[in-house]
């Protein structure tokens, strides 16, 4: 099977994006465009559900269609537990977000066609990322997610902050993407394949290779920038300038998890090494701490959620890092013991999408209905917006890790994971292992505090209508559907975690740790109560200390003014951008002088260096005069004519003389063609010469007074060296091309022109038939040049008119 429905499914969002603008124009102000777009994620989600039974049986599906077969690039989709869980999140959350956006985005005021085209573009790209088995196809989709994220952040492009945030996210994630590409290139060099699955099979080869560490670090740079890990996290808070549905979708539920996906996908390749273990887990745990501590001081609700997202992504990342130790052990009890961390990571990934999605939507509602997100202005919304409050309560208690919400379960598993990793006898964990539970616990305390801030500062306390731009009231029912669905999932997952675990989480675990495939995952029952364990005491400690600290927040918040990492990082970024801009501006100004002579110096200089250099280095210089025909008197005469007219051009006192001498030179050359019995060339040369002289004469009117530029000896010497260099170089190339016979001449083929093309004129048969493709492109280039001349001159004229 060459083509499959599954590929169509992935490309479906792209295809649908094409018709969105037409739908929008046709139904403008009658039906919200979002209703049409809603079909896409819903259809995707339902179609993907069909794969759950297949994948939970431990099967994987591989479908390939050739894309650029000559380069070995195939659009291979690989469906396994890991890709399926991401795809379900993308389509599921996508459907809810689109539904929510129908009420959030006004159909009268907003440019909806842009919004939905970008969102579909993102959806398709994200599906492409998680289903591609080919590294370079994955890369293309990966960058496409960055680009669609850029477009969506800059959706309200008339705002300066939006443009700033969009550019920041673009620069950072594309920087990561490019280093990831370099890592991919190294990996494909090592393994001689582009397929991720085949790389997993060759993991010993990769582990023993000298490029192992560089490839790993470059790849991780891509993952860390995308998933906003410290210190690349600075782009995420600025990305909150996007409309709230976008923040909920891209910047908390899906796109930022692409980095997590990449790390999970490459755990079988790199996992089991000390470097991978330490880099991933320590970056993750630092990000966890940094995000949660910074979130507490935020006064903008979306900024608080952004830092919270950073922190939660760090949590998942560190779990993946700690769990990679299981790869070291292969299959066995020890492996299963440490694999709990990976299972916790996947579980928290799902949970985070549910509670964070609902919280973002609630914040969006608050913003929409009150006109502000500033917690200093908000308060007392409890009685005014009861449904939003309930959803926010569920979401933030889940985020804080309290029962009976799913966050409690994954937070407990997170503690289990870090506690288990303490007993690792490898990678130096026997010495430093205790760091992880301690940091994890501190970060959880801060997570608890900011969850409480989010909930109580907004909904409890005193209501001040005069501080709000609008009179607060509950959101329309349509806007509440999506957050309510997500919030009920938060509770449902708490009560039935093992259904989710068996069908979705365990298959994903097997994809990350293939050694466990035989046993079909690990034997872990997720339960809310597992006795008086260390994890439970840790949670109780978090709640007690967290509550105390929340109540005394006013007293110790002053500490923050002493260390402001996020401010410092942003200053570093801003100054870096400023320096780079001024540097490149200066550099460009230095060589873009506006003088044609300078540009010709660059062009010819590089030509002499590169062509001449390779001629010498590759030993191509060869002369063979043995087969040459004797030189006739005519030819000598014409060459003397050519040289003379060349000299006249150089020493001419007026432009007119120089132009005519140049024309004479051309006519001499065409006579030379006649002597060599090449009438076509001679004719062409004659006509071209005529046209060029006429053109020069036209330009002559526009050129300034012709005078020898008094630039001194250096100027003339440069000219002399370059012209001599070009002359000698091309003489050498022409002679060497004649002397080096690397293969049989192909002229024999062209001599059959009468039989093959019905043409007695070989030259023309070559032009229009044998090498017709070249001719076609040549005339295209010619036309582009003509249009270029036209636009350059006309544009300049228009501008001059405007100035007058």
């Amino acid at each position: 099977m060459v083509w499959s429905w599954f590929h169509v499914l992935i490309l479906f969002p792209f295809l649908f994006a094409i018709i969105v603008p037409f739908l929008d124009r046709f139904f403008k102000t009658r039906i919200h465009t979002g209703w049409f777009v809603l079909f896409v994620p819903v259809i995707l989600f339902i179609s993907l559900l069909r794969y759950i039974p297949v994948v939970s049986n431990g099967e994987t599906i591989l479908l390939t269609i050739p894309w650029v077969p000559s380069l070995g690039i195939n659009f291979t989709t690989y469906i396994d537990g890991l890709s399926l869980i991401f795809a379900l999140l993308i389509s599921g959350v996508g459907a809810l977000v689109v539904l929510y956006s129908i009420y959030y985005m006004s159909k009268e005021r907003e440019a909806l066609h842009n919004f939905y085209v970008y969102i579909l573009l993102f959806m398709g790209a994200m599906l492409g990322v998680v289903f591609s088995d080919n590294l370079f196809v994955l890369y293309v989709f990966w960058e496409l997610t960055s680009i669609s994220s850029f477009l969506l952040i800059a959706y309200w492009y008339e705002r300066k902050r939006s443009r700033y945030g969009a550019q920041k996210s673009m620069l950072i994630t594309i920087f990561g993407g490019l280093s990831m590409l370099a890592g991919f290139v190294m990996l494909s060099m090592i393994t001689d394949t582009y397929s991720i699955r085949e790389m997993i099979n060759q993991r010993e080869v990769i582990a023993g290779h000298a490029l192992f560490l560089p490839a790993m670090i470059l790849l991780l740079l891509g993952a860390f920038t995308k998933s906003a890990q410290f210190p690349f996290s600075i782009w995420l808070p600025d990305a909150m300038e996007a409309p709230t549905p976008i923040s909920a979708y891209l910047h908390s539920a899906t796109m930022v998890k692409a980095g997590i996906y990449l790390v999970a996908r490459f755990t079988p390749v790199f996992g089991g090494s000390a470097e991978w273990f330490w880099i991933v887990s320590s970056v993750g745990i630092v990000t966890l701490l940094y995000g949660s501590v910074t979130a507490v001081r935020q006064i903008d609700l979306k900024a608080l959620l952004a830092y919270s997202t950073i922190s939660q992504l760090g949590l998942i990342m560190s779990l993946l890092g700690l769990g990679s130790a299981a790869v070291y052990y292969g299959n066995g009890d020890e492996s299963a013991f440490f694999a709990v961390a990976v299972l916790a990571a996947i579980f928290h990934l799902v949970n985070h999408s549910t509670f964070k999605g609902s919280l973002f939507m609630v914040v969006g509602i608050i913003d929409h209905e009150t006109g502000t997100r500033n917690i200093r202005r908000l308060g007392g919304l409890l009685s005014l917006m009861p449904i939003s409050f309930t959803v926010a309560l569920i979401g933030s208690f889940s985020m804080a890790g309290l029962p009976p919400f799913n966050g409690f379960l994954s937070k407990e598993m997170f503690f289990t994971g870090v506690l288990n990793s303490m007993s690792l006898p490898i990678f130096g964990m026997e010495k430093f292992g205790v760091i992880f539970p301690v940091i994890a616990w501190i970060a959880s305390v801060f997570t608890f505090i900011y969850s409480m801030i989010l909930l109580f500062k907004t909904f409890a306390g005193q209501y001040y209508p005069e501080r709000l731009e609008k009179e607060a009231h509950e959101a329309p029912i349509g806007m509440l559907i999506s957050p309510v669905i997500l919030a009920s999932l938060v509770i449902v997952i708490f009560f039935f975690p093992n259904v989710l675990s068996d069908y979705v989480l365990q298959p994903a675990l097997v994809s990350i740790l293939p050694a466990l495939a035989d046993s079909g995952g690990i034997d872990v029952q997720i339960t809310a109560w597992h006795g008086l364990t260390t994890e439970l005491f840790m949670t109780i400690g978090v709640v007690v200390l967290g509550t105390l600290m929340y109540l005394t927040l006013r007293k110790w918040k002053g500490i923050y003014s002493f260390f402001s990492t996020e401010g410092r990082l942003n200053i570093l970024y801003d100054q870096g951008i400023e320096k780079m801009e001024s540097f490149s501006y200066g550099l460009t100004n230095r060589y873009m002088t506006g003088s044609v002579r300078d540009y010709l110096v660059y062009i010819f200089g590089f030509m002499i260096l590169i062509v001449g250099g390779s001629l010498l280095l590759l030993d191509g210089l060869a002369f063979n005069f043995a087969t040459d025909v004797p030189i006739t008197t005519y030819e000598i005469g014409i060459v003397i004519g050519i040289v003379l007219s060349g000299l006249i051009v150089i020493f001419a006192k007026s432009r007119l003389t120089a132009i005519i001498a140049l024309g004479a030179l051309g006519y001499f050359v065409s006579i030379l063609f006649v002597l060599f019995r090449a009438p076509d060339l001679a004719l062409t040369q004659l006509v071209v010469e005529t046209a060029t002289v006429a053109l020069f004469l036209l330009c002559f009117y526009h050129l300034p007074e012709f005078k020898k530029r008094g630039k001194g000896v250096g100027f003339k010497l440069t000219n002399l060296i370059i012209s001599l260099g070009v002359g000698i170089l091309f003489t050498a190339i022409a002679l060497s091309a004649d002397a080096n016979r690397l293969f049989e001449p192909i002229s024999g083929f062209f001599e059959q022109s009468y039989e093959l093309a019905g043409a007695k004129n070989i030259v023309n048969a070559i032009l229009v038939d044998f090498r017709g493709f070249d001719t076609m492109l040549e005339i295209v280039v010619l036309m582009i040049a003509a249009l270029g001349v036209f636009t350059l001159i006309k544009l300049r004229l228009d501008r001059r008119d405007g100035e007058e």
Partner: protein
Amino acid sequence: MKRPNDLLLRAVSKVAVLIILTFSINLFYSGHHNPGGGFIGGLGVTAALILLFLTYDIETVTDNLPVDFKKVAAIGVLIAVGTGAGSFFFDAAFLSQTFGYFDIPVFGKTELATAVLFDLGVALAVIGSAVTIIQTISEDE
């Protein structure tokens, strides 16, 4: 452009342009078996037009020959690409050319080749591009 006293030039041009144009068309058609072809033919026509531009005012020529040469170039490229794409209808590779011998009244046995169509595109592209460049530069005051 300046208007020098150029009676001689004008008198010669009137005849010369006709000769150059005829010769160019001849060059274009003879390209299949003899020296010539679309490129040279196109350049010949361009040369004739340049002569007109030089002899008469550019405005005069443009008024009497109201052709947008940018479009000529575009049409030329389209014809060339179109004949290439036409190969698809005959299940042949892009830009395949073919030829055949036909008996046509008056002319007798004549060879007709698809390459002529392609060459026509080349000729139009050359004329259009070259004249566009010259017109644009000379109009730039």
